[in-house]
């Protein structure tokens, strides 16, 4: 197991280097001079040149890349041009915000998706199955941002049931510790606040989680159906086990093996989709951080932000692979 993890980590090295090269190049190919953006409409050419000089923007390309790599190795993600703050510390609350959102979106997706998939498979061809799968198909066909807008319009604006934006009651901000607000409010033993924060999570989580939910539901269903046909399920039934044991013990664990991979991949997709959801729900997450940075030509932030998201994505997939092997004892390390 340990060797497996080490091997996977080693295999990551070329991918990581490729990622840094891509992020670095992307950022340097983006047209537009960050010095110009910083100084705005009123800048003089001279001021721009000076600023370029101080920012090291006129060093040769590969020198800049090399410096960038060296810095990365020391955990230095650079300094934001816009806020002039260390990105490595500035980005943490954003990551926390995105993490919280993604976590709840995925929780929603998994709980609803897996159970819908199971019940659909169990009651194959029933009306539940039909509706659930139709719903899932519609779910995967829906633009995330549109769903988000509709939710906001219906549940926040028209019905007024849920807050329209943000992570918490803005009048009464939490004293952040981990920046995972649900966790923070629990640490403070402030359950009323936890409730408010959860309320803020509902709409964005559903918006973000709907597509993965639909995908997971479909995947679970087909995987379950496949497993239910297998010989060992017949064996279990021949032993005299009841349907519940058959489904929730024997079939589920096997059916989850492919589903877990999908969950891993979808988590990555979520991280990307978060950009849209975060903008609509004013969620100060890392997707929005990067998006704002692109508008601002904040080179270091774009490059580090994309890199960090990609890195998290890669790590999630590594974790999923390991989990996958744990679920399936047949796989050798």
């Amino acid at each position: 197991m340990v060797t497996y993890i080490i091997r996977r980590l080693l295999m990551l090295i070329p991918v990581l280097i490729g990622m840094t090269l891509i992020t670095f190049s992307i950022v340097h190919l983006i047209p537009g001079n960050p010095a110009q953006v910083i100084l705005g409409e009123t800048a003089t050419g001279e001021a721009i040149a000076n600023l370029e000089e101080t920012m090291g923007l006129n060093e040769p390309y590969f020198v800049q890349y090399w410096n960038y790599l060296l810095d990365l190795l020391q955990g230095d993600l650079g300094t934001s041009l816009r806020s002039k703050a260390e990105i490595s510390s500035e980005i943490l609350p954003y990551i926390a915000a995105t993490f919280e959102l993604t976590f709840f979106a995925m929780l929603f997706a998994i709980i609803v998706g897996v159970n819908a998939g199971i019940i659909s498979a169990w009651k194959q061809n029933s009306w539940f199955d039909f509706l659930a799968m139709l719903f899932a198909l519609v779910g995967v066909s829906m633009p995330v941002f549109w769903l988000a807008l509709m939710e906001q319009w219906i549940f926040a604006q028209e019905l007024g049931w849920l807050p329209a934006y943000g992570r918490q009651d803005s009048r009464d901000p939490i004293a952040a510790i981990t920046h995972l607000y649900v966790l923070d409010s629990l640490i403070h033993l402030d359950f009323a606040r936890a409730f408010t924060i959860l309320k803020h999570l509902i709409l964005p989580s559903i918006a973000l989680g709907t597509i993965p939910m639909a995908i997971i539901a479909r995947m679970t269903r087909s995987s379950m159906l496949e497993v239910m046909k297998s010989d060992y399920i017949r064996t279990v039934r021949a032993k005299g086990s009841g349907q519940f044991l058959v489904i929730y013990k024997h079939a589920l664990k096997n059916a989850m093996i492919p589903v877990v991979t999908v969950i891993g991949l979808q988590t990555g997709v979520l991280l990307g989709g978060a950009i849209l959801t975060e903008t609509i729900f004013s969620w100060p997450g890392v997707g929005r951080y990067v998006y704002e940075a692109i508008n601002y030509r904040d080179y270091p932030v774009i490059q580090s932000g994309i890199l960090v998201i990609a890195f998290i994505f890669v790590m999630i997939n590594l974790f999923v692979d390991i989990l996958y092997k744990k679920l399936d004892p047949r796989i050798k390390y």
Partner: protein
Amino acid sequence: MEDVILELSGLSTHFFTDQGEIPAVDKVSFRVHKGEVVGVVGESGSGKSVTSLSILQLIPSPPGKIVSGSIRYKGEDLAKATEKRMKRIRGNEISMIFQEPMTSLNPVFTIGNQMREAIRIHQKISKKAATEKAIQMLKLVGIPRAEDIVNEYPHQLSGGMRQRVMIAMAMSSDPSLLIADEPTTALDVTIQAQILDLMKKINKEEHTSILLITHDLGVVADICDRVVVMYAGQVVEKGTTREILKDPQHPYTQGLIRSLPKLHGREEKLYSIPGTVARPKKDRVGCRFAPRCEFAFERCFKENPELYQLGDGRESRCFLHTEKKGERLEDATTNT
């Protein structure tokens, strides 16, 4: 009869598929007595597995359904039993093992876990006691290192070992009847010999009746007391093992035996039945075997023969047994 454990009469199981209704099992009747080993032979697709699965109501449904007939287990009709009742029968009164030892165990749970489950479904005992019982059963079927094996996963065992585990699991609640659906087909000869040996031992020592499904007449000769031959969903011949192998009455059985290469004795050119194995099909008129039968005559293509009682419990499904054609059948046999 007192000692009849299982009696199928007129059992028909059909599959309702896109291609239409498939009578996979068509009015099958036979009996299994206490302590007896009954073999069901037939080529692929003849309905052997469906018959055995029907007994425990394990037919995938939909598309499968028992459409008529009865399955009397100790007098009780299982075809009409509720799912709840079936749960108590399965693995307790009647156990079953399958052809593919490689895929019949759940790959993600340990052997111990799966065996414990089988035991505790029917016996109210503690987890620890169940583990002990599992180990004891594994030892009974001759698995070495049973204490370690319970903590291992199926993929860590060889095919023969897995089949033993399956048998151990099946035997763990002392069933009266063991249904074995081609238990050795996937195994090598030397391993098959081990498993057959084990089954004989169980039959002798535990007095468990066995319904053995196979397509290998060699296996039948080795272990069965009586044999049921199936073709295209129907029983074509029944009798004791010796009778069937030495004196087959139905042309299909005859052809089958003659087409086998022999290990002993002189070999000559093999006999071969022309054509391909017929699949069960709804609304087929005439004898299922007629298109391949060298003795077929007009009537064979128009009507489906019934099983003729040939005395001593022997039965055969062929018009040649009608008095008129009796001699021809004799001719055919002597010609061999």
